[in-house]
């Protein structure tokens, strides 16, 4: 008992504790502190990254910053397509807690029978089920107001198309994931879509964002795409086309309107069409953009081109006399005939009367190679350089394989095929002083420069012939319109069915331009299978051309170039009785 710790001065309280015990305690505490320091060093220095990450996982969140899909506008800035919020409703069946009344109400708001809703919610193993994608915002609000546990909404956007069926084929549509599926929505999907951004944030217990962590990636908003389309011209074109298709009990039809100075597509309408917002039960017939995807033999529309190239090669002049009598011509075992025996015609007369024999005799002054070169330069057998999905090439065989009879039939438009758009486009060569100019779906204010195919003088000569063809005495006098001089060529063909031609199915079209002295627009109209008696291009398609030309030029503010008086008199008579 010699060594002991004294805790007090009082001998009564003298402890008998040996010294080693207190030393042992001190050492123990020191070791514990050492362990703590070691752990702290491990957490804060060596294992820092791991713990930092674990911490972040527990309180930081990555938020996606959605990019707004760009709008599609017409040339005047009017909206053709835009995104609006359309929340999607989803549920966790396991968590769902709703009274039968609430369920019925939910089913009603979702627009589905109660049985279907019950079936969707029946599978309790699933912890996620879409009830309905992209409902209207007010409906979503009502659903949220029901306050059913286990039913949630996800922010989504859907496209709206205010012009509806009028512009459906051009604008196209997107799928439920907002990806372009057709038309401009598909072609310019990348530009329209933009790129979503993201940010790291700290969220508090209530789910509020309280702090930013690190860098933000701002979203790249989708670009607006401004088209060359004029929604008013488009509307007129669609309306007149629809009326004509209905009136002539036709199967379908298309109209293309091109600006001859800039090469812009002002209107591109097809009928039948569809309402892009309601796409259930769509048929291919409705979906097809016929003006661009359907090809047919251009027929008489080619005759002015045949004449144009012969003029350009110097083989003929507009006054050259062509013998078309007796209205028939045999070549390679085939007989090519006109509807009448026109006898001796000038080149102008060949176009005016649309003589097949005359056209083939002019073509015989050319070599296949020369013809092929001109056709190709005008875009036949070439893929149209237009920003549109599914544009077809048409058919133009290599000139080396042409037989004499094929060269002859091609002169009046058989043995090759093209879309209505290609035909309208090839006529820019006559309208734009001999240059075929590139067509565009996007707005452009610059006059286009193109490839010279004809001289300005020859283009003018052909325009004069087109004017004659669309005047009384020609094949398309119904193309005449009040106030503006027009020129154009009608075409009618038996439809190809299988290997031959159907005797009672026709296709009628008219391609022309106005005002004829210095054209501003080209209008091409095609009516498929008119079956109400009349079927000639000059009877069925030319009136549509006339109305579209007049309304379009008036809306563009083009001054009338011919006196309107005579038409007014006749119109007054027609209207008052």
């Amino acid at each position: 008992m010699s060594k002991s710790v004294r805790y007090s001065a009082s001998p009564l309280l003298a402890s008998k504790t040996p010294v080693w015990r207190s030393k042992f305690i001190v050492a123990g505490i020191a070791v514990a502190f050492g362990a703590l320091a070691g752990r702290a060093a491990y957490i804060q220095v060596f294992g820092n990254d791991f713990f930092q990450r674990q911490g972040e996982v527990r309180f930081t969140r990555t938020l996606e910053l959605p990019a707004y899909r760009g709008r599609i506008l017409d040339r005047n800035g009017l909206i053709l397509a835009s995104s609006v919020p359309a929340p999607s409703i989803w549920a966790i069946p396991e968590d769902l807690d709703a009274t039968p009344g609430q369920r019925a109400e939910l089913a009603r708001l979702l627009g589905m029978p109660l049985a279907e809703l019950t079936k969707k919610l029946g599978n309790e193993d699933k912890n996620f089920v879409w009830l309905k994608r992209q409902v209207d915002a007010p409906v979503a609000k009502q659903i949220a107001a029901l306050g059913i546990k286990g039913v949630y909404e996800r922010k989504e956007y859907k496209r709206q198309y205010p012009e509806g069926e009028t512009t459906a084929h051009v604008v196209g549509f997107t799928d439920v994931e907002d990806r372009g599926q057709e038309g401009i929505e598909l072609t310019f999907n990348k530009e329209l879509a933009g790129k979503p951004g993201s940010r790291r944030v700290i969220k508090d217990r209530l789910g509020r964002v309280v702090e930013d962590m690190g860098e933000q990636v701002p979203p790249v908003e989708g670009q607006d795409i401004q088209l060359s389309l004029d929604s008013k011209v488009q509307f007129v074109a669609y309306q007149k086309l629809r009326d004509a298709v209905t009136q002539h009990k036709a199967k379908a039809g298309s109209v293309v309107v091109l600006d001859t100075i800039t090469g812009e597509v002002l209107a591109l309408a097809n009928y039948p069409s569809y309402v892009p917002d309601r796409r259930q039960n769509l048929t291919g017939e409705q979906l097809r953009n016929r003006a661009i995807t359907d090809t047919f033999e251009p027929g008489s529309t080619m005759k002015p081109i045949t004449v144009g190239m012969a003029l350009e090669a110097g083989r003929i002049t507009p006054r050259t006399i062509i013998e078309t009598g007796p209205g028939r011509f045999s070549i390679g075992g085939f007989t090519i005939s006109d509807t009448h025996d026109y006898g001796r015609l000038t080149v102008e007369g060949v176009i005016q009367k649309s003589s097949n024999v005359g056209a083939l005799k002019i073509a015989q002054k050319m070599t296949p190679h020369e013809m092929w070169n001109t056709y190709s330069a005008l875009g036949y057998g070439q893929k149209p350089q237009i920003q549109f999905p599914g544009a077809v090439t048409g058919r133009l065989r290599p000139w080396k394989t042409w037989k004499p009879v094929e060269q002859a039939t091609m002169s009046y438009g058989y043995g090759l095929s093209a879309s209505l758009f290609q035909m309208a486009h090839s006529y820019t060569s006559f309208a734009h002083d001999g240059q075929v100019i590139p067509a565009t779906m996007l707005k452009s204010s610059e006059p286009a420069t193109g490839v010279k195919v004809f001289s300005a003088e020859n283009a003018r000569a052909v325009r004069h012939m087109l004017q004659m063809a669309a005047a009384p005495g020609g094949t398309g006098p119904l193309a005449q319109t009040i106030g503006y001089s027009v020129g154009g060529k009608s075409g009618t063909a038996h439809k190809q069915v299988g290997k031959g031609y159907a005797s009672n199915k026709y296709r009628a079209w008219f391609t022309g331009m106005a005002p004829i002295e210095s054209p501003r627009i080209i209008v091409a109209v095609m009516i498929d299978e008119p079956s109400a008696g009349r079927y000639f291009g000059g009877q069925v398609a030319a009136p549509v051309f006339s109305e579209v030309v007049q309304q379009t030029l008036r809306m563009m503010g083009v001054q009338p170039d011919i006196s309107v008086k005579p038409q007014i008199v006749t119109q007054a008579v027609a209207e008052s009785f």
Partner: protein
Amino acid sequence: MTRFGLVLLVLAMASALYLVHTQYESRRLYVEMERAQAQARRLEVDNKGLQIEKRSQATPLRVEKLAKERLQMRTATPAITEYVSQKGSAVTAPRP
């Protein structure tokens, strides 16, 4: 010495409490800003929605229908249009 220590302790405590307060305040303001931004975005989206609604009420189809039915208007033609040439004087198209 002890008194100086106490002063330092009080200062340290005050500073710590102030830090807590500032942090709280900053988060509160941040939440507010966040909410304002969300509202701005929502208003922007609403605006776009209303624009498109306005547009769909003014499509050529509807305008023409209303003009014809309710206002008894008819489509203009060059025959009933007076043209004033840009250079200033002459009216080129004759009146009906």
